[in-house]
């Protein structure tokens, strides 16, 4: 149990200032991460999960801006950091793997160079030959066959899975303490998915790097993560250890997500389950619980007031009025399980 936290995010709010208005993509999230943890962030498109973690390394593009909150990396304030320090932070403390391997690599620069430039930015004195050797080792680490020849390849000469591995190699090039993987498997086949996830797990065991795995796929989370954060409408709905989330689910949205997983045993022709409705507008966010409009158990209080977090255990919390101690017990018969 590490006392010192690697990453601490407090009350982060991020918005996009567009022509149509302020889109509040992240509406007050707080969480923390210690060394060596693997955390899964689950949510639909538009839940704010990607934006939240782009904010952590301040990689938002216009018109996005962080409007409030605090981000501490190993105790240091990230939001107030100078540009030089920020670059250092991105260079060798935090690595990020992006969603689209197709477009995230520069098509006119060879793969080897895209890796070595990170190494050389970190260690200015390192020689070309040495940097290339390191790059080759990295490609071997991510199990890319024919690593040496691929150093000279261009991204478009490689398949999606290979490109994703390259992205990983780039991300881990300077031994970061934190690796953020944004939907690393979404654009890939299921078989490749498994390989990438295995890569992640092995990497964590070997280097004790913390990993934040952003995904919309609960299956991926169940397999790989130790902790889970469920996001919806720019806020954290539920947070806990993976067993707690799956077996002691404390939020209607999480229940809905679980039910949406197709059951291989039940292929008898029933319709696939999906949560009715669509995500809330983030330009004019609801003042109550974000999930209210799609929740089976919504109550009048849910519409009016956003619920606070209720701690179910030292590691498990959820934002739902059903957990309120004042909630009448007779109605708890239709409780949450």
């Amino acid at each position, binding site marked *: 149990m590490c006392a010192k936290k690697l990453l601490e995010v407090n009350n982060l709010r991020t918005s996009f200032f567009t022509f*149509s208005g302020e889109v509040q993509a992240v509406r007050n999230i707080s969480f923390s991460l210690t060394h060596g943890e693997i955390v899964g962030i689950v949510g639909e498109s538009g839940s704010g999960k990607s934006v939240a973690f782009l904010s952590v390394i301040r990689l938002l593009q216009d018109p996005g801006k962080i409007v409030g909150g605090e981000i501490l990396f190993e105790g240091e304030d990230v939001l107030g950091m100078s540009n030089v320090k920020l670059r250092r932070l991105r260079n060798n403390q935090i690595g990020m793997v992006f969603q689209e391997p197709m477009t995230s690599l520069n098509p006119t620069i060879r793969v080897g160079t895209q890796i070595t430039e990170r190494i050389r930015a970190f260690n200015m004195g390192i020689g070309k030959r040495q940097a290339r050797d390191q790059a080759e080792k990295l490609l071997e680490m991510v199990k890319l066959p024919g690593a040496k020849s691929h150093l000279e390849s261009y991204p478009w000469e490689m398949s999606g899975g290979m490109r994703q591995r390259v992205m990983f190699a780039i991300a881990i090039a300077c031994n970061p303490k934190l690796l953020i993987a944004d939907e690393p498997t979404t654009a890939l086949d299921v078989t490749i998915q498994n390989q990438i996830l295995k890569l992640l797990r092995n990497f964590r065991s070997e280097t004790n790097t913390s990993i934040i795995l952003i995904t919309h796929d609960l299956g991926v989370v169940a397999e790989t993560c130790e902790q889970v954060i469920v996001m919806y409408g720019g806020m954290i709905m539920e947070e806990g250890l993976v067993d707690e989330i799956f077996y002691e689910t404390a939020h209607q949205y999480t229940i809905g997500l679980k039910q949406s997983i197709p059951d291989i045993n039940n292929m008898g022709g029933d319709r696939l389950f999906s949560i009715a409705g669509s995500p809330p507008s983030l330009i004019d966010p609801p003042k109550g619980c974000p999930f209210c409009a799609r929740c089976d158990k919504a*109550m009048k209080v849910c*519409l009016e007031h956003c619920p606070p977090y209720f701690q179910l255990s030292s590691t498990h919390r959820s934002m739902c009025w059903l957990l309120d101690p004042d909630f009448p017990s007779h109605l708890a018969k239709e409780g949450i399980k």
Partner: protein
Amino acid sequence: MNENHNEQFVKDWAPLQKEEKNAETTSGVTVSYWQDVLRRLRQNKLAIGSIFVIALILLASTIGPMLTGKAYETQQLSLRNMPPRIEIQTAKDGTNFFVHPDLRVFLAEDNGYVTEELDPVSANLADKQFIYEYNDTTYYLVFSADGTKLLDENLEPLPQSETVWNKNYLLGTDSIGRDMLTRLLYGGRISLLVAFIVTICTLVIGVLYGGISGYSGNNTDIFMMRVVEILMAIPSVIYIILLMVYFGQGVFNILIAMAITSWLAMAQLVRGQVLSLKEQEFILAAKCTGVSPIKIILRHLLPNSIGPIIVSATLSIPAAIATEAFMSYIGLGVKPPMPSWGILSNEGIGAIRSSPYQVLLPSIAISLTMFAFNFLGDGLRDALDPRLRK
């Protein structure tokens, strides 16, 4: 928003009904594509302004030449090279004089209307003087390095002097005494006429060629486009020069020469549009129901690709004006004495030091027109871009 434990409020545990949940449905009037286009165009002030300017220019060119009361080819040699604004000097006895930059003296009426030239009585070139006599008074025209001065018998400048608009030739005259205003307006007529007709030809030929090429596909398309590619390797100006040397000058000739060479880019554009649309399902549907190819091209493909075609056509108007002006400038366009803005520029450039207005006026006319059409074309392009739909 979460930390409101201390806030006292009543928690209503009553279940929420479906209607109450869906209170916040997305609203927003759906607008058709063309309505949206018009709306966005109207918001573009530069484009709207340009439409007004174009309308003004068109009006001026069409009826202007008839209103000036002068023909574009009438020469009045004695009144040649008169600027639009002239300085009238008045002597003690009320006689008005106008000193022409070519060192000639004219008589004028009070309102600035120049009447006739006054010939010098004698010349004293040693002292750099011309001597004039009028109304029993002697005047001296003295010229030196810092300018020409008309002095009275006491060798003093005349009491009054005023700069007024040239009343009989509002924009001055050219080097052989023709009215600049009429020539400018008529020149506008020619330049715009050529531009419009050439653009129409570009549209017709380009759309047909590109449409057929794109729709046919396979070898016909490849061949047709190879032809276009080979022709496009040489700038069209070269072709036009060759054709005009062969045809000789003239409005009709330049029209033909430009029409023959202008359709290449439009053909490429249309073919590209047709190719991308061809693959879409509604075309497949039309084919399945047995609609003839020509009908498919005209009724389905063209209306959907018309956006970029309109933009290209609008922007080809200033290009045509520029090309015609260019050709006339090098002596291969419209045949003098018929004016076009290019011819006027050519005639005026030699006198840029002495009578700059002769070349500046057509240049301003060309620039204004080019700006107006370009801004309109840009505005149309922005308005028609579906990605900007909100």
